[in-house]
């Protein structure tokens, strides 16, 4: 299982090398890998269909409780088969579609990496592993959307897709962490039985919101739907694979996967089903508003994703059945339709629906595949799409709440789907032969294989629903619902409400299609370019850049005093807060052991410090500085530190001499600040000084660790053979410190010498 997931990455790494040698045949050769994976996953079908679920585990980061675990049950197997199966067709198709492109190797590198990531995503048992694969699909999607990197729109669309999905991914990671805390494990196989504990957790609502944000952005739910149509900047095989059949369904996969854990509550129902319903309607309206064939298909994908989310929200056994059935049906027909759109673009050179017509005579096979797939999209008997639609209606009618509303939404969705099907499968093929940039001709076998096979499967499953149901869908629905579900899919359920809705949707949809030109013109008037969700995204991006610029100007002003001010303000806030909360009692001010001469020295130091501040000229300031320094030296001597005192006297003398010598070559003081600034800085000084006083008073009563001074005192004579303990510490116990100090002094001396010498040479 591990090698099945990782094989994609290995082959991807070899793809550029293979492409350089095999040229146009690369697609057929590379397709062997996904084909082998499809067969491998298919070999699990009998066991999964019998109700088993399998767990494969490999230790990865044992210390962090991260295992590389793979969970294979009905849901993950359904996805794995779709990914590898459609992947096989896409790899072959891409070989024909991109034939002769110099970047073919790079394309296969990205595509196969994506396939492996997606497989890892749906098979992962561990949440962290799942997240890693989740982000990998975002990154490979970014690379694939921006494949034509010389095109500015492609680059912008790639970034947009990346920001939206990775932003959601961050929320998802946080959600996973909360979920693991609530459920006590990072493993899905464990979490699936912890639903009660998770739903009862105090953090249930935040974790649900975070998880949903991740799923909704990935699956292009309103209001994050805008990135998906823009992702159509990618080459068509990518659109067919990532942005209709697989990657965008990752969010739906997550919803379906976690439904037994976090689903079933009122919050879940309202949030998920209403978001799905909104997305469905938004997608439908926008699909009829667009004119580019790929864009129409992209918006109808948004619609389908909304439908799937809606079904995940309802959460009944009927909804679970409808979810997996609709998922399979949609992957089959939408994949086929996208591939046909690619063929029309490739062989006839048109993309806009309004410029197409009468192409069926030139490309009969493409037309056949496209029309069968579109009939499935429209939900016409006897195709699999019809069964999926019936299941959808049944689930909506039986919804525990809002049944009427959801049924109406589902019916409206069906109506939109019929109109879209007409647009993409009637308009290009029938009617007057349109003049196209290229003379239209039938596509080569590599391009035809995918759409024909997918369309045929849609027909096969429609005529024989039991094949799909008993093979996999029953097991998948059970995994989604968390308990056994018996779907009972059939073409004919008798005369009932769903059938009535189907017929009504079909008729209304046809009407909508006939009137499309008028509807499209009407919808075009909606001011979405000015007020749509995409504008909000752009405004957010602009705002982020503005905030970054503003805070850089604020924090990185280039004025040293502002940096110091900000640093000190942070110190005040953080240390002040820590002190105030941990030691709320003001320490006692004990002055019982005060001696008069000490108090005098202390006063002299403080007054000298103040004098250094207040001094009008530099000489007075340096003199005051010296007085303060000598006062400090006296204190050292009084409090048993003669060595320190002596050093301080020496250094203070040198400092004064140095300052007098050098500073007096500089111009005198000029007062440049306003009074307010002086007051503000003085207040900051007093605040920092007060904080240090407070800290020192508290520190005297706190001893976190026993002092190591005792060791130095005991070992001074036996260990260091010295009687002056301070000296022994400096040259023996902490000799390396002293060595470092010597180096610093040496460097400073070299620097000083260099600067003085430089000046001398300048003058010469």
């Amino acid at each position, binding site marked *: 299982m591990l090698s099945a997931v990782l094989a994609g990455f290995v082959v991807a790494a070899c793809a550029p090398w293979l492409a350089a040698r095999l040229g146009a045949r690369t697609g057929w050769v590379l397709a062997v890998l996904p084909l082998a994976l499809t067969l491998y996953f298919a070999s699990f079908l009998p066991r999964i269909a019998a109700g088993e679920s399998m767990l494969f585990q490999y230790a990865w980061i044992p210390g962090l409780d991260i295992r590389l675990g793979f969970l294979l049950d009905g849901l993950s197997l359904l996805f794995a088969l779709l990914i590898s199966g459609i992947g096989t067709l896409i790899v072959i198709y891409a070989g024909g579609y991109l034939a002769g492109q110099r970047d073919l190797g790079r394309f296969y590198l990205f595509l196969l990496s994506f396939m492996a990531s997606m497989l890892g995503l749906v098979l992962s048992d561990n949440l962290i592993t799942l997240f890693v694969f989740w982000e990998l699909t975002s990154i490979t999607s970014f690379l694939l959307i921006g494949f034509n990197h010389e095109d500015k729109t492609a680059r912008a669309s790639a970034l947009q897709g990346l920001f939206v999905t990775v932003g959601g991914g961050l929320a998802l990671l946080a959600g996973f962490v909360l979920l693991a805390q609530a459920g006590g494990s990072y493993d899905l196989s464990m979490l699936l039985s912890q639903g009660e504990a998770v739903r009862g957790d105090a953090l249930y609502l935040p974790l649900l919101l975070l998880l949903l944000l991740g799923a909704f952005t990935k699956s292009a739910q309103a209001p994050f739907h805008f990135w998906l149509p823009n992702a159509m900047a990618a080459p068509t095989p990518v659109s067919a694979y990532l942005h209709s059949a697989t990657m965008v369904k990752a969010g739906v996969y997550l919803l379906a996967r976690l439904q037994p854990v976090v689903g079933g509550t009122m919050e879940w129902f309202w949030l998920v089903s209403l978001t799905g319903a909104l997305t469905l309607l938004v997608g439908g309206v926008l699909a009829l508003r667009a004119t580019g064939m790929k864009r129409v298909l992209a918006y109808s994908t948004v619609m389908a994703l909304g439908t799937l989310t809606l079904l995940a929200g309802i959460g009944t056994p009927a909804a679970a059945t409808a979810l997996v059935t609709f998922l399979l049906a949609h992957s089959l027909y939408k994949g086929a339709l996208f591939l046909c759109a690619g063929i029309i673009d490739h062989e006839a050179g048109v993309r806009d629906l309004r410029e197409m017509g009468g192409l069926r005579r030139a490309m009969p096979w493409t037309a056949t595949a496209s029309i069968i797939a579109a009939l499935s999209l429209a939900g016409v008997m006897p195709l699999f799409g019809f069964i999926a639609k019936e299941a959808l209606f049944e689930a909506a009618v039986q919804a525990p709440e809002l049944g009427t509303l959801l049924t109406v939404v589902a019916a409206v969705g069906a109506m939109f789907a019929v109109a879209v099907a007409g647009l993409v499968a009637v308009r290009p093929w029938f009617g007057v032969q349109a003049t196209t940039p290229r003379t239209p001709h039938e596509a080569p076998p590599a391009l035809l294989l995918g759409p024909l096979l997918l369309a045929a499967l849609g027909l096969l499953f429609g005529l024989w629903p039991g094949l799909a149901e008993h093979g996999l869908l029953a097991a998948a629905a059970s995994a989604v619902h968390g308990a056994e579900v018996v779907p009972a899919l059939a073409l004919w359920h008798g005369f009932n409400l769903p059938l009535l809705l189907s017929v009504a949707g079909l008729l209304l949809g046809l009407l909508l299609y006939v009137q499309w030109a008028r509807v499209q013109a009407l919808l075009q008037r909606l001011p979405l370019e000015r007020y749509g969700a995409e504008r909000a995204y752009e405004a957010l991006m602009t705002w982020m850049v503005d905030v970054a610029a503003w805070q850089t100007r604020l924090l990185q002003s280039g004025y*040293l005093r502002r940096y110091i001010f900000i640093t000190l303000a942070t110190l005040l806030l953080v240390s002040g807060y820590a002190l105030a909360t941990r030691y709320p009692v003001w320490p006692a001010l004990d002055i019982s052991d005060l001696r008069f001469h000490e108090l005098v020295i202390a006063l002299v130091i403080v007054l000298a410090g103040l004098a250094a501040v207040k001094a009008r000229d530099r000489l007075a300031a340096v003199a005051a*500085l010296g007085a303060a320094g000598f006062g400090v030296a006296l204190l050292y001597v009084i409090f048993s530190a003669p060595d*320190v005192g002596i050093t301080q006297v020496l*250094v203070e003398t*040198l400092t004064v001499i140095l*300052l007098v010598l050098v500073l007096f070559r*500089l111009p005198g003081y000029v007062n440049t600040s306003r009074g307010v600034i002086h007051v503000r800085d003085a207040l900051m000084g007093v605040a920092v000084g007060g904080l240090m006083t407070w800290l020192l008073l508290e520190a005297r009563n706190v001893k976190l660790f026993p002092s*190591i001074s005792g060791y130095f005192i005991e070992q001074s004579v036996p260990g260091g053979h010295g009687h002056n303990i301070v000296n022994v510490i400096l040259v023996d116990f902490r000799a390396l*410190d002293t060595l470092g100090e010597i180096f*610093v002094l040496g460097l400073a001396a070299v620097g000083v010498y260099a600067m003085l010498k430089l000046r001398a040479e300048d003058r010469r």
Partner: protein
Amino acid sequence: METVMAFVVGGLYAAAVYMMLRRSIVKLVIGLVLLGNAANLLIFTAGGLTRGAPPLIAEGALLPDGAVADPLTQALILTAIVIGFGVLAFAVVLIHRAYEVVQAVNMDKMKDTDT
């Protein structure tokens, strides 16, 4: 006495901070010197103050006679004082050199590298 010392340290810090927030680079240097003294005194006081008992051991003895002042803080401060002086000397010469090049001690005018 520690209480009084805490206020001395606070006073020195306040003076140092005020000077470091000025535009004149000369005042910045004075602030740095004050800051060094304040920090040393802070460490010295935090280790505890003892009168008349320097950490010395009499000739021939193994241990000091009775309790002595904490030698560790003294060693640390000794290092700090010397390093502080090294840095100060370097800074002062650097400032002087910078003044010769840009003809300004106002740091706002030293901000741009073009001058």
